[in-house]
């Protein structure tokens, strides 16, 4: 495996809700290698976005990073002064957000929004930045870049806006692209187009991508490695191949079974009972235990550590081996 581009270690993030605190991320550690496509999968409230956004300093004011490091090329993002972090955002790390409708500035021409990133980082002069913006728009599959440069976001369709978002993120040729649910707000045919575009750009630019998604279909078809988050903890982290063949965490298994796919008309459903918790205190036992069919007394009293059960396959479950044996 190549060298880690971004290494997050023991990250803990809490949100202050006034009357109580939400423990959104509880000791998450993982890394993204150079050139790797990492999928971070989880349901809403699992902390999948918060993990990466807090590393970039992009969470809301009421969110506090309690501990951990996030080393990007060896430098800890969490210890940087705001100015240093600003230099990295947009230049070394680009971000694509979920909702292209609200994520673009409504009163700024889209061309200027793309150029802004290059000008901020002195990546290019005005003239070159302009030329490069046209080039980017063309690469993103936006027809007539010159005319469209001067348009405002509301004059584009959802899919086109997401292409503009990607152009913004890629403007300074970052080494890492973080895509936070990049296709969730889009129709399926458009989702495919956007993923194809991301795939193509990734191969061309040789950059790393972290895709945050709730969709196993997207993650498994796109990514090299997959992390499953639940209640702000990593439940399972594995190469996609292992993940597909031998899921070892009951939550992963349950989640995979929850997906209904084409051609499964006669299938029996076996939903995971209950719902994901919102932690208002740090987890002291397995957060999934109350919904887990394999839970034992130990699961309800002891927090399982994330352990490597086979090379590059990490699971946070006391009974992972049994699950594996049962599943095979």
């Amino acid at each position, binding site marked *: 495996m190549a060298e880690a581009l971004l290494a997050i270690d023991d990250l803990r993030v809490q949100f202050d809700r006034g009357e109580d605190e939400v423990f959104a991320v509880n000791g998450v550690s993982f890394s993204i290698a150079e050139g790797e496509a990492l999928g971070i999968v989880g*349901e809403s409230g699992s902390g999948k976005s918060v993990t990466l956004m807090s590393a970039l300093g992009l969470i809301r004011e009421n969110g506090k990073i309690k501990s951990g490091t996030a080393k990007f090329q060896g430098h800890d993002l969490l210890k940087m002064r705001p100015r240093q972090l600003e230099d990295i955002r947009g230049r070394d790390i680009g971000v694509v957000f979920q909702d292209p409708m609200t994520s673009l500035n409504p009163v700024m021409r889209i061309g200027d929004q793309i150029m802004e990133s290059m000008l901020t980082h002195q990546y290019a002069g005005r003239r070159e930045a302009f030329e490069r913006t046209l080039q980017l728009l063309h690469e993103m599959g936006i027809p007539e870049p010159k005319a469209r440069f001067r348009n405002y976001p509301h004059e584009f369709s*959802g899919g086109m806006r997401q292409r503009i978002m990607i152009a913004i993120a890629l403007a300074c040729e970052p080494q890492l692209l973080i895509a936070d649910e990049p296709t969730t707000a889009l129709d399926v045919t458009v989702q495919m187009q956007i993923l194809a575009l991301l795939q193509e750009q990734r191969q061309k630019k040789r950059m790393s991508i972290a895709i945050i998604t709730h969709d196993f*279909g997207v993650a498994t*078809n*796109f990514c090299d490695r997959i992390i499953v988050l639940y209640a702000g903890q990593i439940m399972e982290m594995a190469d996609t191949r292992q993940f*597909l063949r031998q899921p070892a965490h009951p939550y992963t298994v349950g989640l995979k*079974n*929850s997906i*209904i796919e*084409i051609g499964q008309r006669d299938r029996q459903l076996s939903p995971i009972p209950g719902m994901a918790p919102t932690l208002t205190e740090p987890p002291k036992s397995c957060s999934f235990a109350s919904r887990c069919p394999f839970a034992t007394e130990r699961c309800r009293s002891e927090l399982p550590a994330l352990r490597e059960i086979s090379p590059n396959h990490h699971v946070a479950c006391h009974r992972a081996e049994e699950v594996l044996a049962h599943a095979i």
Partner: protein
Amino acid sequence: MPSSPLLQVEEVSKRFRVQGRDLHAVEKVSFQLDAGKTMGLVGESGSGKSTLGRLVLRLLDANEGRILFDGKDITSLSPKQMRPLRRDMQIIFQDPQASMSPRMTIGAAIEDAMAIHNIGTKAERQKRVDELLERVGLPTVVKYAFPHELSGGQLQRVGIARALSLNPKLVICDEPISALDVSIQVQVIQLLQELQKDFNLTYIFISHNLAVVEYLSDQVAVLYLGEVVEQGPAEELFANPTHPYTQVLLQSILKMPDDTEKRQALTSIQGEIPSPFNPPSGCTFHPRCPFATDVCREKKPERKVVGNQHSVTCHLAN
């Protein structure tokens, strides 16, 4: 003679007037649905599937066509005449929070449905609220809660309980799971399935999720820009998708592969859904269709029967 279907929709069209222009939301849609069966309506955003659901319930009035419920033409009934019929036809919304009054407790919301139709005494209705909540898998104490205190999945169960409180025959499920998390989606689907079996419910299941529609439906109609491009029995349609759009939709679904070697190629058709204000000439799908010919550009395709109750609106189908 077989009994008549519970619901017959005949050549129904709906146009909205928006800023002086006509938006063709639903164009000449027809289908029949037998009691106890499920009709799936699939399509991307702007395909008119939700509008169609509301037309069936007469929450919107159709511009053309007829809707027969239980053999009775309800197309031109007045709102007052419709009211007693509402007991028999209910709807479950995509966003249960938006469909409930934030000032009413869960219990009051469910009870109100019965109160509107003067069903039972206050005490009987209260008892029924408890039963319903239990039936949809919620503890009865939630009846004291307000909508904002429940999660999306719980609220959707409340929405289902409210719809069921009137013992309807037909339930329109308008994207009931698309706002929910994956693990909660299956719970709700399972619940809907059980309820259908227990109460012999008839569903119109509206969704953009093809797999779920396939899973739940007996009949399926695929909509594009307000028109049905393909419809037929679910099994038949998904085994033999004939319209290019249905094929494209099916190819666009990212299936979890068995192994990394069996991953899907990320290819898709170009272009996006055109503006419904200005639909393309001829076959509305022609600008995006990989097989489009001149005739597709010029002439509107007719509906053709290609199999057992399986019809396709495409020039190229045979």
